[in-house]
């Protein structure tokens, strides 16, 4: 065998399949000894095989006692899928390699057995790995571990799950100093940033770039009927999508939210005259249901599958020849990764269609298509590692046994994201874990660590380890309730809905789940009981899925598109709309801020085209309405989209420049916004990850409403009595991104630099009109209420013959 070449048994297996190893797969083998290696390959490029090849060859040639390779994927389903796909070649080559997965779905018995007698290759998720490292027997279980493979690392790198994973890897590296790290990533804008996260700091990490393959064949779906002015359902496109399904073998239909996927699936079935086999797959569905769909998909039994991000990542779906993205993609990188799901034959172009859900999304889709053609991916910088994750990891470390602060600090700062962590920041986290922090010192429940006379930190009460493990993880799911058919006990679960949605239901209401309409019967303990219902019009499930903000880069493309003289690339109806806006008002520009003011329905409206993304526009709405309240303009409410915020109230704004003062807005963020629900939600996430709030207790799972109540009050208390508490510092840091996304407001103000155009009109404008149809309006209770009550009261007084 040539150095780095394939051993004969592998060579023969590839040949028996009529395959040839890809160059990057062989490269991975050649560089098997690199301490850290990142492979960037397009979907369908045999990435996973490339990652496992060095492990399989090593195991085949040398054998191994105990755990050899740890594989981590962001999805449970992916781990299961890899297990299937890996066992086949291993069995066909007659290798004696034991491969098992371990996720939240693995049975307790199986998990126990794995700790005693680990397989050669263990496939798991960041959460399961974090738990594994928290057991006292972790050193024994991981003894001899040689390689770790992080799959779809680009997806993990965007969230706290990645930060948690890297801390767990730092722990593993302490246990197994010679551990080699491999990262597998889809095409990204900044491979170096991901390499820095993956490597043990300050080790280097080589990057292998696989041939990206041919460009995708991607276009916008043409329909006879134009898309509606607002909404996200894309129901208008059902007949055209049905046609596409008929013309292709297997079509994946991606949606941005679960609710939209449900509605679309339902409508697709109503239009499915040929009864084609079509399935649905999203994260709210029960596991068994999902697995059934996955199995049918692998067998090639389905012609189409309606799905969400739960199918985003590298699961091998066999013969998919078309991907349809319904709704604007929001983010070019994710779009490219989704498109890659079609056509798993490497070196053949993937075919994809975009379906805008409303008129504005037509523009966004066209901009995204251009970005894909230009290979212009959007990136977000990964800030320093979040300290709430660090706190959780300190507690997990304590659960595994006593530790020295110096050692743990050294270990944690070897994770790339935490390399810049200062010692006093670490000490503050440690102090928080030990005492709860200054304001909470008096409470016993937060006194969790003590220092032994030898200077070792350990759990004050060893029984706390179980509670810490129960609350491990960084995924902040919206609180959901299981939905079951009302029948004998333990009726089949259909899936889950958000608690808030369940609370809004009255017996007799109907809603969609798993593509079926069900009737709400009642709430029993923590389960929503339903019965089958044959009605045609459901009350819609509002389980959220994720609402992404349109990326900065895509927003900028749209603004540039507006500046074109005409728009041959846009459908006529959309070009007409933009022309009308240009005639009646103006089109927004990148270096100016367009603000429109007009009356409607007895209220004054202000529309701000900030193009800063949904979350930032939402925050802008909160900050501006507060300013307007202070100025006596009596705002009554607002609504935000990715491109604009619409505010309505009793009085019109005449001087916008005073509203958009960056310093004043920043003061609003620190001062007034501190009391806002968004900050409270941010705090809740932070406090839960850091272990201040325990969502799971041995007795019962805390329900969402109770958790909200106590976390809100904790927040108010800290805000009042200890505003610099560690949890408050982290909350403010988070506010710059995510839900609050103040960083994008600052970026918008910087690019506009005071150039604000207030256009006063006597009626609503073409671009603003769809905003009135948007859902998610936020109501302001302030001076407007006082004035409206005063009007009403005056009437009552007059009726009573009194002087108002």
């Amino acid at each position: 065998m040539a150095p780095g070449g394939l051993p004969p048994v592998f060579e023969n297996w590839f040949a028996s399949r009529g395959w040839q190893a890809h160059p990057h797969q062989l490269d991975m083998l050649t560089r098997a000894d690199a301490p850290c290696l990142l492979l960037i390959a397009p979907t369908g490029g045999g990435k996973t095989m490339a990652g496992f090849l060095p492990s399989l060859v090593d195991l085949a040639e040398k054998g191994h006692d105990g755990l050899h390779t740890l594989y981590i994927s962001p999805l449970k389903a992916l781990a299961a899928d890899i297990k299937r796909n890996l066992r086949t070649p291993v069995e066909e080559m007659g290798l004696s390699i034991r491969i098992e997965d371990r996720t939240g779905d693995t049975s307790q018995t199986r998990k126990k057995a794995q700790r005693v007698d680990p397989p050669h290759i263990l496939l798991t998720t960041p959460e399961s790995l974090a738990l594994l490292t928290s057991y006292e027997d972790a050193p024994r279980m991981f003894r001899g571990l040689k390689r770790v493979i992080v799959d779809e690392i680009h997806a993990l790198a965007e969230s706290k799950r990645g930060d948690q994973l890297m801390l767990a890897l730092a722990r593993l590296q302490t246990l197994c100093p010679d551990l080699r790290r491999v990262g597998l990533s889809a095409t990204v804008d900044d491979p170096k940033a991901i390499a820095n996260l993956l490597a043990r700091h300050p080790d280097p990490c080589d990057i292998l770039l696989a041939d990206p393959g041919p460009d995708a064949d991607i276009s916008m779906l043409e329909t006879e009927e134009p898309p509606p002015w607002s909404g996200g359902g894309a129901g208008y496109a059902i007949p055209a999508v049905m046609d596409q399904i008929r013309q292709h073998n297997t079509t994946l239909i991606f949606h941005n939210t679960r609710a939209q996927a449900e509605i679309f699936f339902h409508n697709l079935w109503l239009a499915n005259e040929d009864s084609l086999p079509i399935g649905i797959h999203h994260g709210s569905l029960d596991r068994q249901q999902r697995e059934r769909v996955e199995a049918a998909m692998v067998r090639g039994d389905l012609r189409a599958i309606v799905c969400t991000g739960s199918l985003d990542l590298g699961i091998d779906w066999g013969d998919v020849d078309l991907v349809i993205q319904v709704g604007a993609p929001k983010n070019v990188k994710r779009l490219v990764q989704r498109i890659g799901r079609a056509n798993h034959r490497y070196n053949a172009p993937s075919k994809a269609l975009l379906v805008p859900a409303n008129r504005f999304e037509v523009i966004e889709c066209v901009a995204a298509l251009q970005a894909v053609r230009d290979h212009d991916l959007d990136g977000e910088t990964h800030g320093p590692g979040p300290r709430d994750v660090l706190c959780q990891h300190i507690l997990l470390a304590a659960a595994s046994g006593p530790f020295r602060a110096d050692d743990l600090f050294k270990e944690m700062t070897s994770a790339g994201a935490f390399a810049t962590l200062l010692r006093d920041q670490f000490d503050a986290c440690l102090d928080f874990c030990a005492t709860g922090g200054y304001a909470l010192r008096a409470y016993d429940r937060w006194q969790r660590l003590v220092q032994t006379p030898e200077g070792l930190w350990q759990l004050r009460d060893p029984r706390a380890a179980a509670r810490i493990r129960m609350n491990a993880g960084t995924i902040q799911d919206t609180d959901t309730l299981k939905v079951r058919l009302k029948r004998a006990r333990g009726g089949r679960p259909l899936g889950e809905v958000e608690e808030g949605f369940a609370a809004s239901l009255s017996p007799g209401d109907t809603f969609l789940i798993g593509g079926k309409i069900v009737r709400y019967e009642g709430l029993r303990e923590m389960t929503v009981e339903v019965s089958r219902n044959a009605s045609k019009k459901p009350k819609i499930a509002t389980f959220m899925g994720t609402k992404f903000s349109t990326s900065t880069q895509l927003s900028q493309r749209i603004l540039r598109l507006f500046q074109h003289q005409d728009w041959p690339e846009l459908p006529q109806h959309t070009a007409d709309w933009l022309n009308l806006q240009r005639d009646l008002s103006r089109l927004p520009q990148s270096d100016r801020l367009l603000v429109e003011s007009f009356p409607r329905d007895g209220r004054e409206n202000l529309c701000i085209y900030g193009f800063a993304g949904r979350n930032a526009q939402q925050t802008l709405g909160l900050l501006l309405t507060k300013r307007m309240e202070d100025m006596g303009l009596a705002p009554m409410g607002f609504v935000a989209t990715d491109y604009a915020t619409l505010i309505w109230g009793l009085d019109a704004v005449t001087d916008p420049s005073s509203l958009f003062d960056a310093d004043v807005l920043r003061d609003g963020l620190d001062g007034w916004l501190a009391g806002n629900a968004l900050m409270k939600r941010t705090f809740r996430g932070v406090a839960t990850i850091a272990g201040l709030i325990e969502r799971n207790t041995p007795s019962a799972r805390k329900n969402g409403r109770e958790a909200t109540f106590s976390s809100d009050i904790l927040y108010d208390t800290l805000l009042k009595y200890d505003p610099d508490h560690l949890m408050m510092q982290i909350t403010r840091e988070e506010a710059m991104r995510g839900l609050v996304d103040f960083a994008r407001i600052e970026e918008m103000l910087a690019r506009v630099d005071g150039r604000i155009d207030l256009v006063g009109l006597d009626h609503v404008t073409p671009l603003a009109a769809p905003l009135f149809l948007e859902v998610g309006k936020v109501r302001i209770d302030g001076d407007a209420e006082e004035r409206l009550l005063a009007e009403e009261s005056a009437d009552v007084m007059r009726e009573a013959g009194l002087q108002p």
Partner: protein
Amino acid sequence: MNGVPFTLAGAQLIALGSGALWWEDRNILCVSDLHLGKSERTARRGGPSLPPYETRDTLTRLESDLRLTNAGTIICLGDSFDDRAAAEALPEQDRLWVSRLQAGRRWVWIEGNHDPGPIDLGGSHLAELPLPPLSFRHIAKPGKSGEISGHYHPKVQVQTRLRTISRPAFLFDSDRVILPAFGTYTGGLRSTDEALTKLMRPEARAIVTGQTPRLVAMAR
């Protein structure tokens, strides 16, 4: 004073925006349903543990009304404590605060359904307090007149030109007034509830609490 005046059984009363009732001629301030120690009771009964700051909030608002009116008598119309144990578990700091508020004035605790027995804090404990032409009790009794009570935590919905506004409110007619709850974190019962529509005369009106209290119709 920022209040809405009205007459009950010949007595001139003022409904304050805070939810307190001011009887200026007798120098009496009346508040209802303080529910002090609510967080303590919630935690004791297996609910979430909340820092006990709602008691401070309620007392702060009460102190501000006392300063405003300089009342010589204060009548707490029952459910002053979330329950007996909550009264006993009141932190020392809060007890001292109550004592400070009690200094130099008459303090009457009317018994409520949450706090039936006497409690170990200064002031007198009464089942009811007749002060002709008015009488003070926790729960309204049908058929009485000149009656001041609480218990229901009433709130009203006001249909204005542009939106519906819901606020805790006083309900009053020629026979009685029902006070809104003064305590922090206390829910409310809509004026459209049968318990309230049966009790109040058809011509009853409401005074919404808030920045500026205002007379409105009692929604039915």
